């Protein structure tokens, strides 16, 4: 996708304008570095140091705030909950979406176009509208305030992934699958041995996008996971910052611990994340 600038010669004013705009944007992006940096520094201060010296280098390095949330609070538990939810939810959602999309796009049957449209509805209706029924349904089947219930809800949200997979299956030729079929391979063998490996890049991008959303999700866990034992990281952070002056140093450490995995993920996979978001993974 590398493209050279169209070769036009820019006037000095245009050049200057571009440089100025770039400078403004660079300053704007530095706010991100700044706030994360401040939080990191503050998380390494003792409580006394933090109150008197909110902005600035720590007088002495201290891991007191980390010790507090990891040992005195059950922060590791929240961390584990977030990991379990995100990993299971993402894996389930991506896998089911791939299955469904494959079933719809590779077979001919009545109601095919209806199903395609049917699976798109979820993209148009935000969960906020249906959270109350979800609450009641999960309560009915005894999965309210339990991780498996939340995971099921995540696994059901396949609209976006299903749409992307369908688009992708249209771009890969059926010839490979047909020849495997002639060799006597069954439908599921073909799906697992041939189709899934070909899908790997799409699976990775879809999984990344889904994982980020689930890791950061705030509203659904707040409503559907009311019990302290099943709290997620974002809920724990919310709890700290709603009593910010009391839990100042704890919230710094909590934010840093929650940020680290996601920032690492971003540094490693930023182009895949962008591709997944823009649908670039399936473009020609």
């Amino acid at each position, binding site marked *: *996708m590398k493209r050279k*600038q*169209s*070769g036009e010669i820019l006037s000095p004013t245009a050049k200057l304008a*571009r*440089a100025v*705009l*770039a400078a403004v*944007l*660079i300053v*704007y*992006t530095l706010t*991100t570095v700044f706030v994360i940096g*401040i*939080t990191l520094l503050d998380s390494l201060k003792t409580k006394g140091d933090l109150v008197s010296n*909110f*902005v600035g280098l720590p007088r002495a390095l201290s891991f007191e705030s980390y010790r507090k949330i990891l040992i005195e609070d059950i922060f590791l538990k929240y961390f584990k909950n977030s990991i379990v939810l995100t990993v299971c939810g993402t894996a389930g959602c991506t896998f089911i979406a791939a*299955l*469904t999309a*494959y*079933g*719809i796009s590779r*077979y001919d*049957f009545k109601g095919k176009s209806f199903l395609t449209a049917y*699976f798109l*509805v*979820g993209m148009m*209706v*935000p969960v*906020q*509208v*249906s959270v*109350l*029924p979800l609450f*009641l*349904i999960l309560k009915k089947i005894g999965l309210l305030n339990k991780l498996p219930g939340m995971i099921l*809800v995540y696994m*059901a*949200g396949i*609209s976006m992934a*299903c749409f992307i997979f369908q688009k992708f299956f249209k771009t890969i030729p059926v010839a490979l699958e047909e020849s495997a079929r002639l060799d006597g391979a069954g439908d599921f063998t073909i799906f697992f041995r041939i189709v899934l490996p070909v899908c790997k890049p799409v699976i990775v991008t879809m999984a990344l996008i889904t994982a980020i959303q689930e890791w*950061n999700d*705030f*509203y659904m866990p707040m*409503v559907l996971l009311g019990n302290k034992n099943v709290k997620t990281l*974002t809920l724990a952070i*919310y709890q700290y*910052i709603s009593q*910010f002056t009391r839990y*100042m140093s704890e919230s710094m450490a909590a*934010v840093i611990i*929650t*940020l680290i995995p996601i920032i690492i993920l*971003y540094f490693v996979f*930023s182009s895949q994340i*962008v591709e997944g*978001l*823009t*649908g*670039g993974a399936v473009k020609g």
Partner: protein
Amino acid sequence: MGNLKKKKHILFIAPGFILYTIFIILPIFYVFYLSVFEWSGLGEMKFIGLENFRTLFFNERMAPTMFNALKNNLKYLLCVWLIITPFQYLIAYLLYIKIPAYNYIKFMIFMPYVISSAIVSFFATLLFDPNIGFLNKIFEWLGHPEWQSAWFGDPDRAFKLMIVLIIWQGAGSGIMIFYSNLMDISRDIMDSCRIDGCNEWQRFFRILLPLSLPSCASIITMSTIWALAIFDMPFILGGANGGVNGCLDFANMVFYRYTFGSGLNGKSNLGFGASICVLMFVIMLFVTVLQNKFLSKFEYDM
């Protein structure tokens, strides 16, 4: 083989279909159903027709809250259309013309997208907290205490600040989508436009904008829907009651308060909560249809 092939698709589709139907489609119908009942969540459901909606619009305690929230939703939607989306498009264009350091800018501007709203609100507290916040400290240090402000405690400022935070966090996704749509415009068109000697303004307004707009329609639709469902940011920033004087109150928060909170008149009524959801749903549908009518005017035959 044809016969066998016909049956197998069911095995592929069934798991997704069942889960999706139970957890995504069923709730939509369920919420409509609930909205005509009075029900505390336990015991008998009492059918009351459209009474819940009447309360929503005409109850003297409820109506002002609801209309204030809807007004804020509308205000936010206008911000999405008139400020956030054009801003995203502009940045996408700047990246497209490869301003200096565009790779770095692209990387950094998208980064906050992966940070959760809870943490973004935390950063907001760091900067804007009236007592310990960074900005007020800086103003004091600079010797301009009169620049200090209550920030989110100030109803005139809270909404604007929230928009800034939302741009900081969420603009990246739209920028990337607009950017990739711009990159998809055929090279030939750009070449012939250069050969014909059109200037940068002409190229932007006559070629790039009209050619990329149709593919942007879906993202604009999505952001409209999400704008009407906004919850996380105002909830964390302004608290469950929607900030000072309800300046950060939105339909979804009203729903949350009256459904999972204390309820109207101290009486829990899930049907009433459901009626707020139905109202949101209808508004979303209405705005989306209207907007698509408007956007389809711009469609070009490619």
